């Protein structure tokens, strides 16, 4: 079933995903080498990428004075 229109997403969805991804990234490199390391690198690079994306898309304009 799809989400009803105008239903706000929970703000905790992103933190939950980030926590799960971080744990997968931390454990992955611990359980093996090779592809397990690569999974870990990709996850942490993606997390840093989230900040870079937010920085690039930052709102720089000033609100007009009322």
């Amino acid at each position, binding site marked *: 079933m799809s989400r009803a229109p105008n239903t706000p997403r929970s*703000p905790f969805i*992103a*933190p939950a995903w980030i926590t799960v991804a971080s744990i997968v990234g931390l454990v992955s*490199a611990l359980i093996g080498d090779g592809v397990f390391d690569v999974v870990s690198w990709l996850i*942490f690079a993606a*997390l840093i990428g989230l900040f870079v994306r*937010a920085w690039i*898309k930052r*709102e720089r304009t000033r609100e007009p004075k009322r």
Partner: protein
Amino acid sequence: MQRSTLKAWFLVHKWTSLVCTVFLLLLCLTGLPLVFWEEIGHLTGADPEVAPAAAGAQPQNLDDLVNQALAQYPGDVPLFLGWDDHSPSVYVNTGARPDTPPPEMHTAILHEYTGEVLPAPQFNEGVMYFIYRLHTDVFVGLPGMLFLGAMALLFAVAIVSGVVLYGPFMRKLPFGTLRTGRSRRLAWLDLHNVLGIVTLGWAFVVGITGAINTLAKPLEQAWQTQQLGEFARRYEGRSRPAQFASLDDAVAKARAAEPGMKPAFVSFPGTGYSGDHHYGVFMNGDTPLTERLYRPVLIDVETGEITARPQLPGYMTTLLLSQPLHFGDYGGMPLKILWALLDLLTIAVLASGLYLWFKRGSTEARVTEIERAGLVADAGAAR
């Protein structure tokens, strides 16, 4: 969420953060070079460059290597011998007495195949050791470690309370909102939120595992008293032997007893790791996980026979697994670089948190700002 509940979480976040921030900054700043300790050691020449073993060469007899190490430090007794995972070398720690603490130990590094003594500084000297002590116990031993552990736990509480506050603040804002064009305080607040959430899982795990690591000494002592004490009681009333059976044979027996593993280090009698009557040959595996999970093989130093192969208790396994998760040294250079970047982002979270505290205004105004979902954050800045 009720305003009173929100206010309570705000105060928890504010005070847990304030108390731990300065110490967390110290830990993040000192932790940064420690991530690259090995690489810095090679670049500065502190760690010896070890020639690869010649084809077909056989490792030197371990007893001979120990004797060569002892010749470097006359009057010392052997404490530990360990193998380097990355080069054909072994280290031998010696000291004036069997229970010499690490800061007073001497170290000799020898080529495993030629027996050559390699020029290397002591592990407990130099800038990196200074940084390491700052990071682990601020030079005051166990009380310093436990204090830093308490700060790490406060950091974990600050992270949890920060996530609780993040929800109502962000409920009308898209993820990653960063408003740098309005007030400076709003820009720092958004930056604090974005960085705090991006580093959330990593910082929480590194904080908690750091707190667990500060319990290393009490946990090791508990293990020595409980598990090793059980074996030591069989030797009650007998003094520590003066002559030891061959170490080389002892390690060969340990290898035969644990065929899927390799020796990581050996503790000599009296060091606290294997009682007064045993070599403790600590075996490990060769995957990132199993190389942290030691299996001690206790070998009687008089008879040279295996006495026991005890399983490490759960709390020691937890401690050993928490070490890589704190240090980030288990996924190659890319993970180290990412670890360092996440460390830098955490420093930015701490610095932005401090800035927000300096520009704080009243608690009521901040709680109102969160209640109104961050949409009037500018108004708070004007107070």
